[in-house]
């Protein structure tokens, strides 16, 4: 399936979700804001997703689903996140997390059951969190022990999305005294009935229902065990690499809508005799967010492709994406809020979806491996992270960066807890820079900066004492981790841009092929745009911003998405509507 086919699939999905501007439509921004105001689940929008069969995207092909390639999962689900991040989370993401553990380690029977439930539009809850332990799930206290009929349980889980309605629940429970020895169980509500507690009230994602569950007195048969006894944390740390890479890719959709809302406002509003978008600061900010959004798409999609190609480094790539992308996108939403002025604070009117996204977005970030946890994962493994071959394998690089090269079905068994081997993405920073043709002065200066940082990183990591990489790591180790994640993002952008240059067939790839976008995106990755007003940034303003701004305006007027697909959000045709494939 080529990238063109992915675009058609996304357009087919958008066609079925209907016009986002039409208030009568269940999946319109206005209706979804109304659901949020009422603090209710968006039942009608969920019914549309169910009717379309969106959850098939979470189910591997061999179990009658559509899931083959992980990068495409992000691209497709982004369409739902463009409507409403809470809809994406409530309908799907926690089900995907739960299902990932089953695809990684479940029995054939468990996989069939999960697949059937998801395809019929049902949910699977993922019950890890305990109030007392948060991210430190190795300390979780819900306990399971062998009993006559299987396993008996004690303890409580908190803040579990969909715990009130999910027919299946993946439960994380301690099965031994050792800190790493928890197990995962698949609880089937149709066989073991128990109630969920009261709902937690939240600031954002108000259409999601988070509640506590009590496992006191619950017993489950032996067949409920997912994977090996005491192997639960290993399963989780492997399976969640997929969600850590894919969730930020989906979240790009929320920022797409935030940017669209803001750009529409800025172009339309006139002050002092000119449109707000004509003011240089505003224009540069809009362009900066647009460039970041494309970079976030490229970085997260690249990491998802790498889970197929270099699963031994998956723990690093997925943590780097979850560490960097949500942070950048969250800053971008704040920048857009400044432009929207008072409107970012209003809960009705035509910009209301913006404040909803602003409230919802942080929940996507907290919910699943906090930024600091991802940083710790990277920091501990820095020596492995910077290992690279001097001469990268060309075929491997093509498979990573040429998105038209199919990767086949994802093999969940290949994931491993820690990283090993060498990093093709890190090495590709150098080859990507070498392979770029006709590099002008500004781009050359940015490349030099990236190369200097990569030399600094490698020498710093070599000299770093192991203690500095620990849980109480040093500030230097934290800085090295940040640099590492940003260099990976730069490598992804440069190499993808090189591929688009050699192929360049459509508007999405023309933008990515351009020096203008690449310079602005790399300056964002390096943190220049916001913090340093150097000559370099001055020059960029003049040379590049106009070019990328033209593309932004064109996408706005054509209702095209701002991500690398530039798909049409309001397709007038519906001919592909029954052919969603990923």
């Amino acid at each position: 399936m080529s990238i063109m086919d992915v675009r058609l699939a996304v357009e087919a999905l958008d066609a079925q979700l209907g016009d986002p501007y039409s208030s009568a439509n269940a999946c319109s921004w206005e209706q979804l804001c109304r659901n949020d105001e009422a603090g209710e689940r968006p039942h009608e929008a969920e019914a549309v997703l169910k009717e379309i069969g969106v959850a098939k995207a979470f189910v591997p092909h061999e179990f009658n689903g559509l899931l083959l390639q992980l990068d495409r999962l992000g691209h497709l689900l982004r369409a739902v996140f463009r409507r409403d991040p809470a809809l994406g989370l409530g309908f799907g993401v926690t089900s995907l997390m739960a299902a990932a553990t089953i695809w990684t380690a479940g029995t054939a029977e468990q996989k069939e059951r999960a697949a059937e439930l998801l395809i019929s539009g049902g949910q699977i809850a993922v019950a890890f969190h305990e109030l007392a332990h948060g991210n430190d799930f190795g300390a979780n206290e819900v306990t399971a022990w062998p009993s006559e009929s299987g396993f008996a349980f004690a303890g409580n889980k908190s803040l579990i999305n969909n715990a009130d309605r999910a027919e299946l629940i993946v439960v994380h429970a301690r099965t031994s005294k050792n800190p790493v020895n928890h197990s995962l169980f698949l609880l089937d509500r149709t066989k073991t009935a128990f109630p969920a507690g009261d709902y937690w009230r939240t600031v954002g994602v108000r259409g999601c229902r988070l509640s506590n569950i009590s496992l006191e007195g619950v017993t489950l048969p032996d067949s409920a065990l997912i994977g090996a006894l005491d192997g639960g944390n290993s399963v989780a740390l492997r399976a969640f690499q997929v969600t850590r890479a894919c969730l930020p890719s989906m979240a790009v959709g929320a920022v797409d809508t935030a940017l669209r809302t803001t750009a529409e406002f800025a172009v339309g509003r006139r002050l002092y005799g000119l449109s707000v978008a004509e003011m240089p600061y505003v224009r540069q900010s809009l362009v900066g967010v647009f460039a970041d959004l494309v970079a976030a798409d490229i970085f997260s999609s690249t990491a998802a492709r790498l889970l197929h190609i270099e699963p031994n480094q998956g723990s690093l790539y997925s943590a780097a994406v979850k560490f960097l992308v949500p942070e950048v996108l969250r800053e971008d939403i704040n920048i857009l809020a400044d432009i929207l002025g008072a409107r970012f604070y209003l809960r009705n009117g035509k910009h209301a979806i913006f404040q909803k996204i602003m409230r919802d977005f942080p929940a996507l970030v907290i919910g699943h491996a906090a930024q600091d946890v991802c940083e710790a994962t990277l920091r501990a493994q820095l020596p492995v992270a910077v290992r690279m071959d001097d001469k990268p394998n060309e075929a491997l690089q093509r498979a990573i960066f040429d998105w038209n090269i199919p990767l086949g079905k994802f093999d969940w068994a290949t994931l491993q807890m820690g990283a090993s081997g060498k990093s093709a993405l890190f090495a590709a920073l150098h080859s990507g820079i070498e392979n770029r043709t006709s590099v002008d002065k500004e781009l050359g200066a940015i490349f030099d900066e990236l190369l200097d940082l990569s030399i600094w990183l490698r020498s710093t990591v070599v000299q770093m004492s192991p203690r500095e990489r620990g849980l109480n790591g040093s500030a230097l180790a934290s800085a090295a981790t940040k640099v590492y994640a940003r260099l990976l993002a730069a490598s992804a952008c440069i190499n993808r841009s090189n591929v688009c240059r050699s192929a360049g067939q459509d508007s999405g790839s023309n933008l990515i092929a351009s020096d203008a976008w690449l310079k602005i995106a790399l300056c964002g990755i390096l943190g220049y745009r916001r913090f340093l007003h150097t000559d370099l940034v001055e020059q960029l303003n003049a040379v590049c911003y106009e070019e990328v701004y033209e593309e932004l305006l064109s996408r706005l007027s054509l209702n095209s998405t701002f991500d690398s697909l530039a798909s049409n959000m309001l397709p007038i045709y519906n001919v592909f509507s029954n052919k969603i494939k990923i």
Partner: protein
Amino acid sequence: MTEEIISQWIVDTIASYLDVSSSEIDPLQPLANYGIDSVHALSLCGDIEEKFGFYVDPTLAWDYPTPNAIASFIAGRSLSS
């Protein structure tokens, strides 16, 4: 490399994580007693791969809780590969 040398290497490595002298780590005591956490376990995997050339899961530190137990596992793996 003998098991004894490997065990000493583990002791030295763990001591460097905790910033204590190697004499403070007993090769027969479980590492958990010294406060080895999941982040240290991840570091240990990377260091073992660097030194011995094969990947081990971070659960190693719990499956083989003492430096001597890890050493005998590594010696076995080295022989078989």
